[in-house]
């Protein structure tokens, strides 16, 4: 019942006129960001962080804005999957399988509506799961000591590549690079200058916001220039919506199963939204068997992955809010916002910043409702935006990134830094080096070092404390599995995902 009371207080925060407006703006912008190919959710949230800052929003409002963008991006990803057969973001990949055939059969409007409803229900299930699970996990996390936290951070890095990740060693390299960047600046505990080389701008360390914007937004521009993909592609026409109540009933069981599976996949480290939508799609195919026409434009084939990916996106907030350990790129960016707002993420946030946590959760519920309302009648607007060719869009996004970073500090030094990160991001992406661990390393690096120091003070310099309790040993074991499993299972899973898509291409 305590939870219910907190939730009510959360609604009181989220329902103030300003915050409601921000949630609406965020949901709208998020859908746009998700819909545009090449502007994934992590990217979109990253570009908006500087703006949230410069507007001088109070912490709960800033978080509500960004969470709505996050929720909106998950809705938006489906639009280009259905109309262009190009997923707007990675989790929307499975939506292509049945969404695009539906659109080709002249049922684009239905596919969009069904996916919006499925996204809504999936998001709702995920948020309910978050409400039930997060306080419990936060209470459990209070028993963690510094050694357990240190192990937990290692686990977060080890599982970040995901079970389907390609080369776990590259995740290790990327995470280490990120942590190394975070050590630049004056050491908090001793005051020693580290890697500053006497440059004044480096004394306070490298701001992770400009690193995030550079790595994601600027490198995207460079990739588009390289691929000469500036012209955009032809869209499928969206006809008039013909959807009966019977159709909606027919997708409900699928949607519920997908939402729950997605939520579980989102909470678990190393699974994430992509796996969530993949599992729910394959499960539906198994459950319905011959009754379904999967791959040829079955409505349930659109509903399952969409419910799964929205369930997972709420699920991914559980470890971020309770442990301060994000499980995906976008939640890592949300964590960056929290840290910049001087809020220490982790179990204490539930007691010390209850208004923010519950305000965000309430905003997720409201945001989902707003998104459903936005997405059915206004789908035409989003479809129009999708036809803006990247050659106009990406330069403008770049400009917004410049404006955002400049208005934080009014220093051109930061802009050069951002461009440098952008070029580095482009090269690293070409080398298939994942960027999210770099960001996470920059965010968690200082916390890791702090916890290591505390653990050593407690144990009087005995390194054994790091694996001294059963809980810590367990965390280390999971971390180890996170690095080894991709070698064992990864190729099989990746193979299956590829096959699922190939089969579809044949029946197309």
């Amino acid at each position: 019942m305590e939870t219910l009371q907190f939730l009510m207080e959360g609604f009181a925060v989220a329902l103030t006129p300003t915050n409601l407006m921000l949630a609406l703006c965020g949901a709208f912008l998020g859908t746009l960001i998700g819909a545009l190919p090449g502007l994934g959710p992590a990217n979109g949230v990253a570009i908006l962080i500087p703006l949230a800052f410069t507007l001088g929003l109070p912490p709960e409002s800033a978080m509500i804005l960004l969470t709505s963008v996050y929720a909106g991006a998950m809705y938006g990803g489906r639009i280009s999957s259905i109309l262009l057969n190009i997923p707007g973001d990675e989790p929307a990949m499975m939506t292509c399988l049945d969404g695009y055939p539906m659109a080709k059969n002249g049922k684009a409007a239905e596919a969009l509506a069904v996916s919006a409803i499925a996204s809504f229900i999936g998001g709702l299930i995920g948020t309910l799961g978050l409400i039930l699970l997060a306080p419990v996990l936060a209470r459990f996390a209070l028993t963690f000591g510094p050694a357990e936290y240190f192990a937990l951070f290692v686990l977060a890095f080890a599982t970040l590549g995901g079970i389907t990740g390609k080369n776990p060693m590259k995740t290790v390299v990327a995470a280490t690079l990120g942590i190394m960047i975070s050590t630049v600046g004056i050491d908090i505990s001793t005051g020693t200058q580290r890697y500053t080389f006497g440059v004044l701008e480096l004394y306070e360390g490298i701001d992770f916001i400009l690193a995030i914007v550079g790595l994601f937004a600027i490198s995207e521009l460079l990739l588009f220039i390289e691929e000469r993909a500036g012209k955009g592609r032809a869209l499928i026409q969206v006809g008039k919506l013909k959807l009966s109540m019977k159709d909606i009933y027919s997708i409900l069981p699928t949607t519920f199963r997908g939402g729950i599976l997605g939520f579980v996949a989102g909470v678990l480290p190393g699974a994430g939204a992509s796996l969530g939508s993949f599992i729910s799609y394959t499960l539906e195919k198994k459950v319905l068997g011959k009754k379904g026409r999967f791959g040829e434009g079955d409505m349930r084939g659109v509903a399952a992955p969409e419910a799964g990916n929205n369930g997972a996106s709420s699920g991914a907030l559980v470890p971020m809010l309770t442990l301060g350990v994000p499980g995906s790129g976008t939640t890592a960016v949300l964590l960056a916002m929290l840290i910049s707002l001087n809020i220490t993420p982790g179990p204490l946030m539930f007691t010390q910043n209850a208004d923010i946590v519950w305000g965000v959760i309430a905003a997720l519920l409201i945001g989902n409702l707003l998104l459903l309302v936005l997405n059915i009648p206004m789908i035409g607007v989003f479809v129009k935006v999708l036809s803006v060719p990247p050659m106009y869009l990406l330069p403008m996004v770049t400009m917004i990134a410049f404006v955002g970073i400049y208005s934080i500090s009014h220093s051109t030094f930061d802009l050069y830094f951002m461009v440098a990160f952008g070029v580095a991001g482009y090269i690293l992406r070409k080398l298939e080096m994942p960027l999210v661990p770099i960001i996470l390393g920059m965010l968690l690096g200082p916390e890791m070092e702090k916890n290591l120091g505390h653990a050593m003070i407690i144990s009087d310099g005995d390194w054994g404390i790091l694996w001294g309790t059963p809980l810590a040993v367990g965390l280390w074991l999971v971390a180890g599995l996170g690095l080894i499993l991709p070698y064992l299972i990864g190729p099989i899973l990746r193979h299956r995902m590829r096959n699922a898509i190939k089969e579809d291409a044949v029946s197309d």
Partner: protein
Amino acid sequence: MTSFGDRFLGLALFVLAVSYGWVAQQWPPPFGGHEAVGPETFPTILAFILAGSSLYLMFKPDPDAHWPMGRTAAELVGAMVILVLYAFVLETLGFVIATTLAVGTLCWRMGAKPRAAFLVGVISAVSVFLLFNNLLELSLPGGLLEFD
């Protein structure tokens, strides 16, 4: 299938790891004597991890990606130069002029017709400038267009 990219990356990272670790050993001991964890402990651990994983990259590299050559490479370098110049002239020329030039050139190089490209540049520059300076009350540099 060559794998030059990963080997080169591994080598560069190895050099980085060694120099990063070496720099950490040069710091004077902090005031108040040595603790179990000094300012150099954590960086030293990181240096070892990076050195190890970069050796792995050198010996077990992934196959190379396709790197742009010739014109595409020139376009890319051009775009990078535009970005650096944009940052360089932002304060002196002012936001509107700098943005028109930068956005316009980028749109044009990405395949838009020059006139459409610079039109988009002007419109986006002016609207963002008005939005920020008037509605949101954040000041972007006026530069040459500043008169008061």
